């Protein structure tokens, strides 16, 4: 007897469908699983057999061989309990092969027969949809996630007997007892909790940072905040997450896929609807940061995709961890190389860094700061140059004077700021339509030339700034991109002098 069940898994960053072939033949009793499977995957055998027995099914005597095709695809870190169970049951005659055709089965089995959720369901189901499957049997805990993919009937299974009932039932009964779950992604996004984790209106003073964050959010520019300890840098970073425009449908799916692969989709929340905000402690390991491991899993920078990656006390991070950022900040993805191949995870985060100006934090206040010039320079060099090069905005965050704290905060609210940002976003969408670029910060040099053209008097000012304030080529490009965003926020088609002059204020270093 031979049976064929379709399942799937996420390997690296992509999902693959696989055929679970089960064969039952006479001979000495035995069970073997082949198909380039790792030991961990083979554990399915024990779980399946015990749970089948506990559900009242006696395993046939004879040799059971399970093959997972294709045989050249290495299978590790996946759970294929439920498909194997289905395959064996089919070989035993309990299930009809025809009921299994065109059906994707996923799930982990407990020893008592309960079906547990697995990770990566969303991308696997999406792949199944692409391959024309009609139905998928998913653990109950994953069914909403599968429904998000859309275009396929998702059936939630709680335990082994339920799966058997379903597969044995006729289509009418199936439709009645297991109604289809429809998820409207657009609606989910619209009704998402709009209240940001922190509102700008609650922040006292700090006009410079607020403005810098507005620019950062509008053009997706990376930002570095520099200031003494206790000046509110962490709180400001949370405010930034609140003024970023809401996730689009495509963005929400992208982010949800990553979280699904990482096994981090919260229970009952099949879709990530808010911009991610990741704030790792500076003691984070390089691997947790970038992703990887024997079975490559997305790292923190990927979990911040389409959201904010906040690195507080940036000079305290390991140099290796910071150096990891170079590629993602350039390409918006990270490639993790292994001997067996490489895996690419998305990593399009908005970097917000916070740093003290010197080891004690109070430079240039010489009444408090006793750091030597060498100590200051060495501290600043701890953030690698190539990372600094890709940060467009640098703003100082001074200590808030007591008067400011005691007075009433009378700044703009996050909602007001967000309005301006959305407008700027629309302009960018229009500008970059048809190109691969999405935001001003991502412009190539050619695009900078095209879209950041400077008129006569503005060009003259640029020259003055370039020479008078000692800009380099990189600083020049960064300044133009920032100026473009400032002009967008002001609703101006051209970059005017005041836009360029303000952009210059966010450059790095002094004289």
């Amino acid at each position, binding site marked *: 007897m031979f049976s064929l069940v379709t399942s799937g898994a996420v390997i690296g960053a992509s999902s693959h469908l696989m055929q679970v072939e089960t064969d039952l033949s006479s001979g000495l009793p035995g069970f073997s699983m082949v198909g380039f499977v790792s030991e961990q995957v083979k554990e399915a055998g024990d779980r399946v057999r015990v749970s089948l027995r506990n559900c009242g099914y006696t395993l046939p005597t004879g040799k059971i061989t399970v093959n997972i095709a294709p045989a050249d695809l290495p299978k590790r870190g996946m759970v294929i309990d439920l498909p194997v169970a289905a395959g064996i049951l089919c070989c035993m005659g309990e299930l009809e092969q025809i009921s299994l055709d065109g059906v994707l089965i996923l799930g982990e089995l407990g020893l008592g027969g309960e079906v547990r959720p697995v990770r990566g369901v969303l991308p696997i189901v999406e792949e199944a949809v692409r391959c024309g499957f009609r139905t998928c049997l998913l653990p109950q805990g994953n069914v909403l996630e599968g429904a998000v993919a859309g275009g396929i009937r998702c059936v939630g299974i709680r335990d082994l007997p339920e799966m058997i009932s379903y597969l044995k039932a006729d289509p009418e009964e199936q439709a009645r007892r297991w109604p289809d779950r429809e998820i409207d992604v657009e609606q989910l996004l619209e009704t998402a909790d709009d209240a940001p984790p922190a509102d700008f209106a609650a922040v006292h*003073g*700090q*006009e*410079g*940072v*607020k*403005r810098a964050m507005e620019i950062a959010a509008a053009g997706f520019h990376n930002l570095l905040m*520099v*200031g003494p300890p206790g000046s509110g840098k962490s709180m400001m970073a949370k405010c930034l997450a609140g003024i970023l425009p809401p996730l689009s449908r495509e963005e929400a799916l992208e982010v949800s896929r990553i979280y699904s692969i990482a096994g981090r989709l919260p229970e009952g929340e099949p879709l990530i609807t808010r911009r991610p905000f990741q704030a790792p402690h500076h003691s984070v390991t390089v691997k947790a940061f970038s992703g990887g491991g024997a079975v490559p899993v997305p790292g923190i920078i990927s979990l911040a995709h389409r959201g904010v990656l906040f690195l507080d006390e940036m000079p305290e991070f390991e140099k290796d961890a910071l150096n990891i950022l170079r590629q993602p900040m350039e390409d918006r993805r990270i490639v993790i190389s292994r001997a067996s191949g490489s895996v690419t995870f998305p990593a399009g985060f908005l970097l917000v860094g916070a740093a003290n*100006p010197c080891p004690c934090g109070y430079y*240039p*206040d*010489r*009444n408090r700061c*006793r*750091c*030597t*010039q*060498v100590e200051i320079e060495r501290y600043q060099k701890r953030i690698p140059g190539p990372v600094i090069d890709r940060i467009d905005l*640098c*703003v*100082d*965050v*001074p200590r808030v*004077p007591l008067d400011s704290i005691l007075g009433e905060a009378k700044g703009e609210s996050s909602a007001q700021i967000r309005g301006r940002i959305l407008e700027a976003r629309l302009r960018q969408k229009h500008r970059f339509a048809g190109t691969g670029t999405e935001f001003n910060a991502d412009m190539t040099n050619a695009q900078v030339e095209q879209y950041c053209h400077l008129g006569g008097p503005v060009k003259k*000012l640029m020259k*003055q*700034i370039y020479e*008078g*304030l000692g800009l380099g080529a990189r600083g020049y490009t960064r300044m133009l991109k920032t100026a473009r965003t*400032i002009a967008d926020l002001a609703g101006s088609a051209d970059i005017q*002098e*005041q*836009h360029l*002059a*303000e952009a*210059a*204020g*966010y450059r790095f*270093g*002094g*004289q």
Partner: protein
Amino acid sequence: MTPYDLWLCYALGSGSGTVRALYEAMNREPIFAEILYHMNPEKRQRLLETALQDAGKSVRSDPEKRMKEAMTRDPDELYEKMVSRGIHAISLADPGYPRRLRMIPDPPFFLFYIGRLPVDDRPSCAIVGSRQFTAYGKEMAEYFAGNLGAAGIQVISGMASGIDGIAGRAALGAGGLSAAVLGSSVEFCYPKSNRDLYESLSQRGGILSEYPPGTEPVRGHFPARNRIISGLSDLVLVIEARKQSGTRITVDCALEQGREVYAVPGRVTDSTSSGCNELLRDGASPAIDARDLLETLLRTQVTDETLQIQKRQQERRNQTAKKERQADEAAPDERTRALMDSLQQKQKRLESLHRQKLAAMPKLDAALYGALDTSTPKSLTDVLEGVSGQLGRRISYSELAGCATLMSVRGEIRDIGFGKYIALR
């Protein structure tokens, strides 16, 4: 200097006074080192004891043994090596030894140098200050060192990071003579961050040390070298120092040597100027204007007679001596006088331009300028509220930031890093 002198320096050191004692005990024989080298060890031992006794010094750390140890290295070879590196040396026995240095209580017997030694017939001024400087300190160091250098004054410093380095560069940049005394032997460049200054001094000034080649910079050497810095100068100028800083050691040496001390006053609330202010309270002269120092430097050249401060004050009132010197050195004096006049005119011009500029500035610029300080850096975020209040309307951060950029480009204010600005004069 001879190879034997070099041997003696490695054995006994320049500053301990033992060499001097021997020199005196041997009746100031020019080739005393050579004689000592070939002398019978027992005879040498006895000579050492009597020499040190006569000089009133106790015999410590077995000099005879060290002399024997130093003999294991071939003096001619060491000497060749030194010369091939472009290092010169001079001893107290040479008539060319700097006159000012000869007169201090404990001059180094040997002096090594690259480039040129400070000359006796031009005034010299030591400019010292702390390693952690502020924008104000930098400005003052550049102002004084630049003007003094331009006037032909020799500027002496320690080439340390911070004020020393700034002063050295400014003096050289103004075309003046400059020299640095190191806490190591002359072939080491410490700190590395002043490499450019080291190179310039090697070519256009002088690098001095009392330590023979191969001596690394060591903490204990620095107080000792400070006595040489003040010893080579007529006047010591302290730009910026905290209380109880290394700079104080130089000042103490200066006072011991009878040199006059000037200090740049700072804000009473700035701890970075607390040392200078303390000096002023204790009697140092305030350094407000380069012209004051120039006048003092030209009238007061340190000679044997002027070691006592009272005598110096008397000589300052001595018109005839001044007239004689004017007759002898008409050319430099006239030149300096012309310089001082042009300095005064320049200052007056700058002040009037400044007033005109302030009057002509747009309201926002003027408000921002007024809100900033010339020495304490301030953040735009901090001054925003004040500026808005002064103008009677709400200024946005972007407006202020744009204004700040334009003013920076025009040189009216400066960004010293991290968005903190100072107003420029």
